[in-house]
């Protein structure tokens, strides 16, 4: 009896030690499968049916009809255009501002840590807070921005009344929030430039411009690329800030694709169409994430070698 018991104990111990990795990973994967993978498969299935979440009617299998509908919908293309414009301007500005900020903090000086903290705070705020307070700043009568402009021109200024103004307002808020992210990455790149290269350049009396392009830039190029990809993926999902500042308005001029999917799903209740649209988005994000990881690994390999 005890021998058999011991034998069984031994088998269990052996099983555990042979499958340590899979066993430790299982709980995490289980949670992810239940809360992420399963819902994803569900919505994938849903995208082939005709179904509205606010009706009792049974779902009806319609093949690719939802995808055809979504891809032929001029609204979708319009929202994609809005998103592409917002994302590209937003990310470009973040790069410029982030880069300039990094230049400021490149060297050590008294009080650097404290000042760096001031600049880094925006990115730790909640989207809701950023949205809420930029809405407060853009407010026509007592908003800071409107009052500043009124003081100069003497006319009441309503930024969010025009499509261009609304888009600028959203981009400015998001850009302010996330430029410090780019700054962090650029700083990391600047730190990795070997000092002796600068010393050599000094002896050769290279111009500052040339020094930047031949020495500094190659070291931050990789990180800049990662910053662009990461910020693009994130800006692609832009929802909270827009939702709170403009709710997509005026009209549909600031309706990004994420907001459109939200409306299709939870206001128009075209559940299966929104699932199809979601899958098109997912595909784009997978491609971008793949690229991102490719460059992360490439950089790690370069650093290691």
């Amino acid at each position, binding site marked *: 009896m005890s021998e058999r018991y011991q034998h069984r104990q031994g088998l269990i111990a052996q099983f555990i030690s042979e499958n340590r990795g899979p066993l430790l990973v299982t709980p995490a994967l289980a949670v992810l499968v239940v809360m992420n993978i399963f819902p994803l498969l569900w919505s994938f299935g*849903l995208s082939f049916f005709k179904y509205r979440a606010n009706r009792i009617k049974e779902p009806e299998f319609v093949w690719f009809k939802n995808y055809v509908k979504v891809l032929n919908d001029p609204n979708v293309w319009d929202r994609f255009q809005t998103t592409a414009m917002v994302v590209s301007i937003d990310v470009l500005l973040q790069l410029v501002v982030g880069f300039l900020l990094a230049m400021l903090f490149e*060297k050590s000086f008294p009080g650097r840590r404290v000042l760096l*903290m001031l600049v880094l*705070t925006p990115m730790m705020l909640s989207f809701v*807070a950023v949205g*809420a307070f930029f809405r407060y700043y853009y407010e026509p009568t007592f908003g800071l921005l409107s009052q500043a402009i009124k003081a100069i021109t003497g006319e009441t200024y309503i930024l969010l009344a025009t499509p261009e103004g609304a888009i600028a307002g959203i981009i400015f808020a998001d850009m302010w929030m996330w430029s410090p992210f780019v700054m962090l990455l650029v700083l990391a790149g600047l730190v*990795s430039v070997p000092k002796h290269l600068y010393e050599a350049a000094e002896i050769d009396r290279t111009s500052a411009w040339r020094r930047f392009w031949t020495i500094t830039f190659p070291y931050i190029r990789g990180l800049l690329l*990662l910053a662009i990809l990461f910020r693009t993926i994130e800006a692609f999902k832009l929802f909270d800030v827009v939702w709170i500042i403009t709710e997509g308005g005026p009209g549909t001029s600031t309706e990004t694709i994420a907001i459109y999917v939200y409306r299709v799903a939870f206001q128009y209740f075209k559940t299966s169409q929104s*699932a199809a649209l979601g899958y098109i988005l997912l595909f784009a994000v997978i491609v971008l994430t793949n690229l991102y990881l490719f460059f992360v690994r490439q950089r790690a390999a370069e650093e290691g070698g």
Partner: protein
Amino acid sequence: MARRREIGKAGWRRTAVTAAISFIYFFPVLWIILTAFKSHTDALATPPKFLFSPTLDNFVAVFSRAYQRGGDAVDTKFDLFFFNSIFIAGTSVLIALIIGTLAAYAFSRWPLKGNDLYMFIILTTRMLPPIIVIIPIFLMFRVTGLAGSYVGIILLYSAFNLPFTIWMMKSFFDEIPTEVEDAARVDGSSEIKIFFKICLPQVKAGIAATAVFGLILTWNEYLFALLLTGIETRTVPVAMATAIGGDIGVRWGLLAAIETLFLIPVVLVTFLLQNQLLRGVTFGTIKR
């Protein structure tokens, strides 16, 4: 390993220039803090008031559960929402930290077949627009009755935190050399002892950083909370957004006070974790 160089030195002049620019950059935040100490009329004053007699009314209003509106006391319920935010974020970060750290340890030490693919899929679940998963989760919660319950949102947030936790912790485990572990293994130490006595103490700072970033990310989350919490489980961001979207008389001072209360720990954390910040905001994909 990266070749780290000493960063060059600049003097006080750089401090002055940078301080000026940093303050401009920080100004929107500063204005939030100032607004929190303003009375309702001061907050809506034109031209904006830089000098005003500070009041703590807004902070009192956050906690006293009520503020006056046309003579009627209105229950803000913000004490409940604060509790919800702390409770939900705390619990889900803890759950994610426990199972995520175990998984990260395994991914780092005993790579599975297709380890990279697993890590990629895990990262993708974090990168994808939440709007894609939320539709089926919304339906799923409706069927199971989890909508509006603590269990539902905590489960969801645990899953939301897991990819971040796994990537972060794996990057920390990858950094510590395995020699000590191997030596202990040769000496016949049990795996459990090696994990708890040798590995975990070395990544203590990493666990702290992961927990703090997880807390901030979860606390700030809005979309899931908007769709999946009920009146009793509502979190602060949702309550704040509702307060803005509501009527014309937005209590900006009150909102500013709420945000200021959260700002203090965030600023402190930003200061203390400055060296881990890069890793934190890139979900552990970039170390330095």
